[in-house]
């Protein structure tokens, strides 16, 4: 059965929820779990203080109730499944390498930061720097699948290196800045300057803004790739599947750097 944590008190400080992942809870009893410290200040806050615990196999964890103060939810997740019925703060699913993380509410900045594998789904909106690296880190997301049903802030997919990001809502400015490879899809409106300084990689925009002059028109694009990729996306999002089914136009850039990236827009 699923391990269920039901929020019973309002957090009085920002909390670090990174210990609550299946591989760290494997051999812990209910009492051990209740004693885990989540505090980020000198004032102690344990799991037991905040949550009502229903014991179960930690392979699947359900958190009922969320807070904008929940940081690092599912960070470092390797396997299993975590579902949060509510909002979360920063660094959701940061550096996760496998398994599945589902957030039903909104998330703060740096959601899916440096995601390396697995699947992260966010039903609400995300803050800035979706999937981006933290300060000083060289690479952003390096694998896996990130599905955002709501809107993203600025700089989504910064330094993306591999993997797929699918944004069903709108995305802010500087979407896909410094992308090195990987794929980023936005079905809503995209802000100013998508793909700024991207070297390689693919951005697909259903409703593109005017592209920077450092993106060059490569004409109509028709290839088996669009069909194969569209089939992969369809179970995640019907509209994404539709975007790749329709005729596309290919722009290459950013010519200010390597220029081997591409932006697909509807023809």
């Amino acid at each position, binding site marked *: 059965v699923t391990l269920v944590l039901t929020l019973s008190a309002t957090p009085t400080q920002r909390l670090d929820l990174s210990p609550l992942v299946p591989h760290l809870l494997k051999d812990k009893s209910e009492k051990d779990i209740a004693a885990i410290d989540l505090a980020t200040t000198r004032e102690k806050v344990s799991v037991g203080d905040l949550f009502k615990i229903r014991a179960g196999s930690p392979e699947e964890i359900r958190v009922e109730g969320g807070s904008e103060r929940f940081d690092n939810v599912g960070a470092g997740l390797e396997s299993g499944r975590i579902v949060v019925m509510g909002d979360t703060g920063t660094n959701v699913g940061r550096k996760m390498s496998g398994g599945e993380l589902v957030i039903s509410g909104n998330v703060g900045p740096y959601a899916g930061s440096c995601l390396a594998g697995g699947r992260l789904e966010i039903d609400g909106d995300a803050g800035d720097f979706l999937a981006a690296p933290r300060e000083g880190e060289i690479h952003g997301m390096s*694998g896996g*699948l990130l599905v955002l049903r709501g809107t993203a802030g600025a700089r989504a997919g910064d330094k993306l290196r*591999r*993997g*797929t990001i699918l944004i069903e809502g709108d995305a802010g400015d500087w979407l896909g800045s410094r992308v090195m*490879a990987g*794929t980023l899809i936005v079905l809503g409106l995209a802000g100013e300057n998508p793909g700024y300084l991207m070297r*390689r990689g*693919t951005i697909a925009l259903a409703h593109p803004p005017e592209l920077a002059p450092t993106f060059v028109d490569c004409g109509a*694009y*028709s*290839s*088996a*790739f669009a069909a*194969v*990729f569209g089939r*992969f996306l369809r179970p995640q999002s019907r509209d994404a599947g539709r975007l790749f089914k329709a005729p596309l136009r290919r722009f290459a850039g950013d010519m200010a750097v390597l220029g*081997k990236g*591409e932006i697909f827009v509807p023809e």
Partner: protein
Amino acid sequence: LKVGDLLRYFGDGWQISKRFDDRHFWRIPTMDGEFLCEATTGLTKSAVGGGNLLICGADYAKTLRAAEAAIEAMNKVRGAIMPFPGGIVRSGSKVGSRYKALHASTNDAFCPTLRGQVATALDDDIGCVLEIVIDGLTEAAVADATRAGLAAIIKLGPRNGARRVTAGNYGGKLGPFHFHLKDLLP
């Protein structure tokens, strides 16, 4: 078996790697648009290769018509492929050659223009022979494809299509599997 992993170099730096769904693809720009290929391809040594049909007709057009009808039917069989372009082979071969470097050479017994010079396998009313090669995952798949092909050829009849259908067994030299057409008649 690395296929795309090596073909990608044809892209001369313009190739694009894509990984999704636990699969790895290479996109290579080509003159007709873009070539898509998986980095690695599965390999099985238990499959059956080299099943064949030799379709003999009065002239090129009729023989081709029979061969195309056969291919259309055979393409519907799961687990079997006809590996040649369009599935049809004009340069059917025999095992061995008079030249040391070659392992196979033109199938002279089935060459209509050589019928006076060699021990020909062709009757006087045959002017053209086309071959269909069949590779399958299992012996049954190759047999099914052969059966489907035969049925399509027979349905077309001798007036518009093939007058004879045979198969090369190359003296049994090609491998352990033998498909006897008389057993596969529809």
